[in-house]
């Protein structure tokens, strides 16, 4: 059942991505992207709910669940940020990433068919996982906004302004602010996740995971501290947000 709902979520994300891309090519606004993403969000929520029932705890027990949770948090931040900043195009850029993460989660072996039901639940461990994945959502969306900034910046620099994409991209300064705010939000959630991680009961593997997480946290801290103290050209900030997120995704294989 959970897999079928996951397939529905993938289809909805794909529809949002394709329809959004078609609108961008035509140079018109993709008002429906938000709606498709909302349906996709509901489908993801249903999958997580079903998985949570099966596990009797937060559904973050395997790589597949982590990927679904990440896609879900990416979508929820898009729903909030997209409407606040009227960045409907952010959905067009977010949808393919959500679709990609959900598709990977569906690959054989990543999503346990009969997950182990937990009898004792460690609250700190659950909170650590939930905060960390939510942080991934915010940082992922910062990377998406960063990509949008890089594209717009290039078009502005080269005076390549006649495309539908250029017409629909939000202003450069707004995008830069979105990247900055999402980085701060993601970093705050990451910090909470890390604190919970330091308190929870640890195994050998968990220690290894924590060192990597500390490295990731330190990188984001350095980026934000540098930007706050000395300022940073918007393009550099955007590129760093993208690079750090891609590197963060590489931590997944270390989780299990």
């Amino acid at each position, binding site marked *: 059942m959970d897999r079928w709902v996951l397939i529905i979520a993938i289809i909805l994300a794909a529809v949002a991505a394709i329809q959004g891309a078609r609108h961008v090519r035509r*140079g018109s606004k993709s008002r429906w992207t938000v709606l498709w993403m909302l349906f996709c969000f509901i489908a993801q929520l249903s999958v997580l709910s079903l998985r949570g029932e099966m596990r009797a705890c937060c559904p973050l027990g395997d790589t597949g669940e982590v990927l679904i949770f990440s896609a879900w948090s990416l979508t929820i931040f898009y729903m909030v940020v997209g409407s606040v900043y009227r960045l409907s195009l952010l959905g067009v850029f977010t949808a393919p990433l959500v679709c990609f993460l959900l598709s990977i989660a569906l690959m054989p072996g990543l999503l346990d068919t009969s997950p182990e039901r937990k009898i004792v639940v460690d609250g700190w461990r659950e909170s650590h996982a939930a905060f960390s994945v939510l942080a991934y959502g915010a940082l992922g969306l910062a990377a998406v906004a960063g990509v949008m900034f890089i594209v717009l910046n290039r078009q*502005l620099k080269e*005076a390549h302004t*006649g495309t539908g994409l250029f*017409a629909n*991209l939000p*202003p*450069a300064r707004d995008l830069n602010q979105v990247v900055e705010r999402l980085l701060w939000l993601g970093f705050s959630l990451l910090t909470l996740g890390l604190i919970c991680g330091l308190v929870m009961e640890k195994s050998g593997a968990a220690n290894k995971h924590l060192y990597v997480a500390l490295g990731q946290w330190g990188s984001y801290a350095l980026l934000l501290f540098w930007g706050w103290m000395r300022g940073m*050209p918007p393009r550099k900030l955007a590129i760093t947000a993208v690079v750090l997120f891609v590197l963060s995704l590489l931590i997944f294989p270390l989780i299990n």
Partner: protein
Amino acid sequence: MGLNHETAPVEVREHFAVSEDKLGAMASKLTELTTIAESVVISTCNRMEVYVAAEDRQVGLEVLTKHLSKDHNEADMSHLYQKCGDEAKKHLFALVCGLNSMVLGETEIFGQVKSAYKQALEAGATKGVLNRLFQKSFAVGKRIRTNTRIQMGATSVGNVAVDLAEKIFGKLNGSHVMIIGAGETSRLVAQSMISRGASELTVTNRSMERAKALADELNGEVVPFDSWQDALVKADVVVSSTGAPEPVLRANQIESVRRMRKFRPLFLIDIAVPRDIEAQAGDIEEVYLYDIDKLQQLASSAKESRAKQVELCEQMIAEEIRQIS
């Protein structure tokens, strides 16, 4: 029946112009004429047009011509065009879409026609025929603007610059514009920026008198020409148009204030020939440099792109007319 910038020079158009608050009254007056049941009068700086629904087409034309010729001489009357039936519908639809405008695809005409129709409606000068026709024309106008790119891109250097500024900064509210050289084009660009919300303006010029005159006109402040570099820290947009033979703004001057500016975006508009701003300034990450060639090229491409859309718009209009005929 009417005339526009293509059929009549301004000295003729001004004879036919109707002030905005009298459009409804004039439309109402026309319905008192024999056979004319409904009427809408449109008057803008580029056109004056009268739309009527008459019980008898031929009589209607004669009565209307006679009425207009009361206040205008024969030479003026010779500039008028007449369109009936589907041709008149096609004309109105094209008008609302901006296809008959001096700046192809401009959107202001849509509001002007809407306002003229509203006045005629309130004056009781329209009934079934013109109500349906005008409502349809607004729907066609919206459809064409949504489904074509007829209004895409700015077609003048000033508007291109302002559109780019909005693409960089979003709303220009609170933005700081600095003018180097108090020329006419700088004044026009600065005026456009202010009309879109830019609130702070600094003017510098070799002649302090001209700088002061421009600053007074645009409610800005003057900075002496030998110390304008300090004002660069606050500026978001710099418009330069001096007659200097050498660049007045160099890349190293911007480099020296980047940290103080906290790497905020800087939009440089160089409309001088020879150029005022060193080309290397455009290589700085947060700097967007546009010279007169780039701006003119963008304006020309927008004009070409709009012209290419005309055929598509006309097809859509023809399709709409087929549906209502």
